[in-house]
Structures are given as structure tokens and as C-alpha cells.
């Protein structure tokens, strides 16, 4: 389909710039995009008949990564070596 209506995963790298320019960056637009992303994730991994641990696992892993990045400046002080 046309570039403006394609989801992010179907956009090629070269067209990424133009695709971002067509996006709606108002608060409603961002909220709508976040909601759509969450709904598609739920529909794919959680609202199924026979789901597995994968749906929640990925959320937990994402939470771990996010909290690690937020605490990185503090964790940097516990490095074993000074020069890498």
C-alpha cells in the first residue's frame, strides 16, 4: 500500500526518513500509535487460545532491559576494570 499507511515493520530502510515525516506527532497521534502497538502485541501473543510463556516473557525481558538502562549510570561505578 501507500507509504503513509504502512506499519513500521513493512517500511524499507531507505524509505524510513520519508515514512517518519508522514507520521502524526501530536499527543493524540502518539497516544494512538502507542495504543495500536499495544493492541497488536496483545492480539498476537496474549489473546490466543493456546498461548505459552512467550507473551509475558517478552514483557518481563523488556522490563529488565529498560530498568538496566535507567540504572546504567549507577551500575557503571561497580565495574571491575577501569580501562577496557
Amino acid at each position, binding site marked *: 500500500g501507500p507509504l503513509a499507511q504502512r506499519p513500521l*515493520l513493512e517500511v524499507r530502510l531507505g524509505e524510513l526518513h520519508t515514512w517518519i515525516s508522514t507520521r502524526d506527532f501530536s499527543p493524540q497521534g502518539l497516544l494512538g500509535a502507542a495504543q495500536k502497538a499495544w493492541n497488536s502485541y496483545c492480539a*498476537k*501473543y*496474549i*489473546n*490466543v*487460545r*493456546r*498461548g*505459552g*510463556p*512467550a*507473551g509475558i*516473557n*517478552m514483557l518481563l*525481558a523488556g522490563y*529488565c532491559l529498560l530498568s*538496566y538502562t535507567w540504572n546504567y549510570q549507577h*551500575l*557503571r561505578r*561497580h*565495574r*571491575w*576494570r577501569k580501562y*577496557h
Partner: protein
Amino acid sequence: LLSSAPAALRALPPPPVAVGVLHATRQLHTTQQSLAPLPPLPEKGGEVRHGLIPEEFFQFLYPKTGVTGPYMLGTGLILYFLSKEIYVVNHETVAGACILAVIIYAVKRFGGDVAAFADKLNEEKMAKALAVKNEAMQSLQDAIEAEKKEQWRVEGRSYLFDAKRNNVAMLLETNYRERLMMVYNEVKKRLDYQVAMQNLKRQKEQEHMIDWVEKSVVQSITPQQQKESIAKCILDLKALSKGAHATV
């Protein structure tokens, strides 16, 4: 009072709102979609490898790097993070490793049972909903059957009316005959009365005549004739007795 009501109503002013216009400020049924029936849930979720990485990532790298590409990428990234100490090894690493081991063991061991239990709960819910729907459909079917039966019964109304007409005719006939009987009885009673009256009159006349004749006859017998008749009777008796003595 009733006959004047229509005239009084016509005399009222017309209502301020135009009757028959649907008061709606929004469009109804703008889309073709309807909320029911919902499409069923998909059977299985998206494919995930090792419980963490979606299959699409492996498929994305397959054309360029083959099967081992993502694994090499993962190993390289882990070694890079460890050697540059972007990921710092501390007490939390050990704790995280222990927790991960426990979680993996629990999922591998109890995953099937929990899934079966959840499936059973789901099945019960679905069965209940289906039972309700089936019952509703069954009751509606029964209602349709009953309605059809009633419609079939209506066809027999001519017989019903014939039977009723027969009943009414019989009642009328019975009543007519009863009254006929009553008339006959009454007329007979009156005629019998007349006949009895005539008989009585004749009987009385006869008795009276007989009495009168007897009385006049008795009166006509003078004392002289009485003595002569008694003497004659005595003579006859004597003659008879002589004749009787003779035969004996």
C-alpha cells in the same frame, strides 16, 4: 359527552413538533460492520524461539546469514557487552541467574498442567455459553412449532362452529317441544274439565229423576193399596208353602 370529544380535539392547535420525523442528531449505522458474531480467537500465538525472541527475527536474518546468523549475532553481542563492561557482573547477576533457572524449571515442569487447567476453565465457560444459546434456540423452535400447531388448529374452526350451531339448534328444538307439550297438557286439562262437568251434570240429573220417580211412586201408593198388596203377598206365600209341603 363522547360525541363532542372529536370536535373538541379538532379545535386544539396542532402540536409544535412535526410528527413522524426521527429526532436523531447523529448518523445511525454508519459502517457495515456489526459487533456480533465476533471472529474466533486464533489458535496459537506468534512463534517465539527460546521463549524470548520472535521467529520473525530469525526469518529476517535467514536470507543473508543462514541458520546460524542470529546465534552468532547473539553471542557476539553478549561477548561485547561483557568485555566492554556495558553489562556489569555483580551480585544481581547471580540472583538473576538463580531466578532464571527456577523459572525455566517451573515452566518446563508445570507448564503443561497449568495449560490443561486453563483450557478446562475455558471449555466450561464456552460450554455454558453454548448451552444457553442452544436452549434459547430450542425454546424459540418450540415456540415456532406451537405457533404452527395453533395455525393448523385454526383451520378447524368451521367444525367448531358447526358443532356450536348444532348445539343451539338442539336447544331451540328442545325448548319448542317442551312448550308444545305444555300446550297439549293445558288444553287436555281444560277439555277433561268440560267432559267431567257434562258427566257430572247428567249423573246428577239421572239421580234426581230416579229419586223423583221413586218418591212420586211411593207417594202414589195409598194405604188401601198397601193393605191389599200385603194380603196378596200373604196369600201367595201360603200357596207357595202349601206347594212346598206337597213336594217334600
